[in-house]
């Protein structure tokens, strides 16, 4: 180092050196170059270190200032190196990732999940509502005796009301106490069996398959599902029936659904009623679905007939009850907008896959 080197000279050299180092660094692309650079500028015999050796020629009072500056430059270069190395790594990774590029528009791997039949879906929904209202689910046989399907339900033999149900009879000897064997025309016999077995209070719903011997068309099937409900206790009233079924309709079809009860007839209830809901398609304005009436009939119900209570040894003077029954497919048709009940037994997967 020549004499007469001033602090300003060293500072200028330092600055020049830093510029040079930074410029070189910016051009670097690989690890090996970076190592070379590190040795050249920051290493023990690197250029900055060499420059610092010239400090000895400076006046004593200037040395700390220039030394501090040199250290700062060194620190900055080290930092720049680190940043540059990170950037290089990032670039390398990016290249590697690019080589893994996927066509994200190719189809996803199908998750092969099946689906419940729409009848099951709606049945579960219906039962769910009544279970929340304290009803228990009970089941009974599909092949029944006349006694349970008719006689104990206030429908004696030759009663004109029998024409309300076209019945399939089974080839089997009728028995004296139970009558003919038949395919149940409704799930009401389950209610009778429950009442025969248990004292009141009773609060049950009975889902299941029922049979009608009639020609099939868009709105009739020979086999379909029903849910019937029964509640018996002291002072169970028609107002309670209205409350439960209104809650049911709101739950299944929405809070805004209006519910209408009109007088009707089923031999096992008195008073009897039919329940309609405001058409959810046209909101009561009248459309094809509701046949321009604004109302959709969804179920039949009423107060358990005193003869039925007597038949199961419930005292009609003390106990009263209500019963209701609905066709599950009918509810499903209304909910999903299905216009032909025969789809339910077609079991066409293109039909089944629409429901979830």
């Amino acid at each position, binding site marked *: 180092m020549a004499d007469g080197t001033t602090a300003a000279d060293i500072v200028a050299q330092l600055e020049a050196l830093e510029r040079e180092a930074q410029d070189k660094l910016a051009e670097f692309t690989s690890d090996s170059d970076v190592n070379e650079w590190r040795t050249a500028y920051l290493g023990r015999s690197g250029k900055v270190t060499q420059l610092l050796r010239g400090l000895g020629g400076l006046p004593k009072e200037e040395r700390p200032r220039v030394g501090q500056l040199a250290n700062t430059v060194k620190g900055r270069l080290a930092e720049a190196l680190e940043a540059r190395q990170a950037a290089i790594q990032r670039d390398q990774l990016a290249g590697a990732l690019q080589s893994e590029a996927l066509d994200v528009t190719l189809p996803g791997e199908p998750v092969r999940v099946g689906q419940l039949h729409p009848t099951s879906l709606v049945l579960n929904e219906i039962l769910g509502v009544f279970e929340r209202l304290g009803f228990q689910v009970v089941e009974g046989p599909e092949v029944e005796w006349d006694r349970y399907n008719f006689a104990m339900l206030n429908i004696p033999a030759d009663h004109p009301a029998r024409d309300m149900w076209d019945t399939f009879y089974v*080839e089997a000897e009728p028995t004296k106490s139970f009558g003919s064997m038949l395919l149940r025309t409704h799930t009401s016999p389950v209610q009778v069996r429950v009442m025969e077995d248990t004292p009141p209070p009773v609060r049950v719903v009975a889902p299941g398959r029922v049979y009608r011997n009639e020609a099939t068309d868009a709105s009739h099937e020979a086999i379909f599902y029903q849910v019937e409900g029964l509640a018996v206790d002291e002072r169970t009233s028609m107002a309670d029936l209205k409350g439960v079924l209104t809650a049911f309709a709101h739950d299944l079809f929405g809070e805004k659904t209006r519910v209408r009860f009109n007088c009707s007839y089923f031999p096992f209830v008195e008073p009897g009623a039919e329940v309609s809901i405001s058409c959810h398609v046209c909101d009561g304005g009248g459309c094809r679905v509701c046949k321009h009436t604004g109302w959709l009939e969804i179920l039949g119900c009423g107060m358990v007939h005193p003869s039925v209570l007597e038949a199961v040894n419930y005292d009609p003077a003390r106990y009263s009850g209500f019963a209701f029954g609905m066709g599950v497919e009918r509810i499903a048709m209304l909910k999903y907008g299905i216009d032909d009940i025969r789809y339910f037994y077609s079991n066409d997967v293109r039909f089944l896959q629409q429901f979830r």
Partner: protein
Amino acid sequence: MRVSLRWLQEYVPVNLPVEELAHLLTMAGIEVAQVIHVGDFWQHTFVGKIVEIKRHPNADRLQLVTVDYGQPEQPTLVTGATNIAEGDVVPVALLGAVLNDAYSETPQRIELKPVVLRGIKSEGMVCSARELGLGEDHEGILILDPSAPVGTPLQDYLGDTILELDLKPNRSDCLSMINVAREVAALTGERLRQPATHRLDTPTLPTVRVDIKEPELCARYAAGVVIEVTVGPSPRWMQDRLEAAGMRPINNIVDITNYVMLEFGQPLHAFDYDTVADGNIIVRRARLGERLTTLDGEKRDLTASMLVIADPNGPIALAGVMGGLDTEVTSETTRILLEAASFSPTSIRRTRQALALPSEASKRFEQGVPPELAPLARDRAIELIAEIAGGRARSHAADSYVRPQQRPEIEFSAEDISRLLGMDIPLTVAAEKLRPLGFSYRRQNDRLHVAVPLHRQDVSCAADLVEEVARTVGYDNIPTTMPAGPLPEARPAPLRVWTDRAKQTMVGAGFAEVITYSLTNSARMARLLPKGVAPELPAGPARDVAEAVLPLHAAPLELKNPFTSEASTLRTVSLAGLLETLAANLRRQPHDVRLFEIAPVFLPEQSKLPEERRLLTAVLGESRTEQWGARAVNTFYTAKGVVDQIMWRFGIAAYHFAPVQHPTFHPYRAATVTARQGRTDQVVGIVGEINAEVSAAYDIDQRVLALVLNLGALVDLARETPQFAPPSRHPAVVQDLAIVLDAEVPAERVVREVRDAGGDLLESVELFDVYQGPQVPDGKRSLAYTLTFRAPDRTLNDNEVNKIRDRIIFKLQVSLQATLR
């Protein structure tokens, strides 16, 4: 029941829009299924009089008709009709009128436009009943009553509104115009006007003698006689009303019996008096071998269960069902014997069913016609006959009332109402609601003693009266509450709970739930067996499968009255229906069809209801949509995996598969599923590939996998609650083991040996490769397993693991002659 509003207004004023009336009736239990507006589309259509008829100069089959319709100009119309004469009053449709297209099968409207027929311009049309939507008749022009006001718009003269009632069996009283009117009066607060009837009594008429031999089947028989009648068409107004009610006019006598039936609800029958021997009516059962030719011309064999009206020579009518041809009223008839009777509903119903002969009369008798009605309706009809058909009459020629009916009095109180309805209605209000319906009452303290009117046979207890009050108050006015009171104790329902879980598992495994008909026939079920194979199987695993889930050998329950032979039997097997459904779906879409059903089969039991055994049945075709990364086909192992999944969900660990040769399945690709209960093994199902001959019978041309499990049996074995075992904190040692051994040795056997030798520290044995081919000797195969060893309480060292592994290898060498690969 079709109720003409014009006719109804004869008995009760209707001062509200018909839609409101229909709503009121429906809400009160008289359902109005439809409101039909007759003639609502008649515009430019008038009552017209034919002034002149001329031949069409250019066409033999056409006539030129000039009509007067009350206006100065008299249009000329071209018509092909021949039933008209000058002076006839007819409906005249002018240009712009809209008519039904009489030649269209489906209802269609056409607008009348100017038309030139063979050179003559027609300025309108004279119309048939069919063109006006008044009936099916298109034989000729509708001839109106001569008194019809010429020039009046036809709608004002003939237009009507029909309420079509859909009556429930309890309200058959409303098969009567008067009773419908009573309902309307009660619901609208109007007064009912009943037609007044008078008894005619010409003393010198021939007599009628009535002998009721079966008082149980005929409570009452009343008869009237009219002589010197002229049988002919009934007046237009009566024909109009009958047609509005949906009945065909025949002649004045028959029309009157029908008219009064529609008015009162009491069926009537008119005999030609001169054909009834000795004027003697005998009501008795038919005798075996007797025959009767009924009005429809059919010769009918009678049985002792049928009630007949007879004279001393034999049956002359089927009581309450249909009259006999020989005693029919014809144009020659001059003397009429009119019957008004009350027959047992059961007897009428059985006869009607036996002969398949429904009629307006039998419909009413089956619902019960009160005996009190007979003389009232008879008197009304006799009066009308005398008035319309002329002649002299004795209304009360006979009345045999052999079984007078007691009308019970019903007691009820405000408490009955409050208890059943959940609403308080004062007794006085209730009484006021009952009165216009025809109920009379007397009050005693807090109770009402109610006498039921004769037409309301459906009312027999306090609950019935509560309904009467409720429906007139309006169901909408009953409050809405929630049931109070204690909830009954919950009952366990394991079958239903596990059915739901099994369904969820199957859905998770990719299966779509189906619901198939539980009715089938024996031939359809027998398709599960290859041709010539008997359903009886010798004792063995296949027989065990049959007993558990495929009882093709069991005689099924047959229906007595099937709707079709295709669905005449309660199924004993479920697989047949599933294969039918699979086949139908594969025809549309050959890939990825996986179906399952959980439903009962019906196994007959001696003088008991059949066992309803709930089965889980699943079927799938082998074909899968080709997609990269996915497996090519479903195999036996796909179906077997589903069984494992179900067993896992049910918490059943003790079960195994064993080969079985069941005729429905591929002889070397099917397995019994056997579960252990206590110390016994129980076959609970089968899984396998369907025999190609069987799937071919279903027209399925790919391999089909199936499984059938006895769900009820699985529920008995199911473990509700899994028991916790703490996961080990110590690392596992994982080793592979590949062996070569006879290909015949079942893999399950290998695993059992490995497990036996491996002991508690062997955590799992997973098969990862099966190889058979040039790399191993003929008749051998290689099986490769991943063995995982782990101790619950410490880290295993290699030494320990190697010892176990050596033990396993030794065991495999000794028991299965396996070698390390």
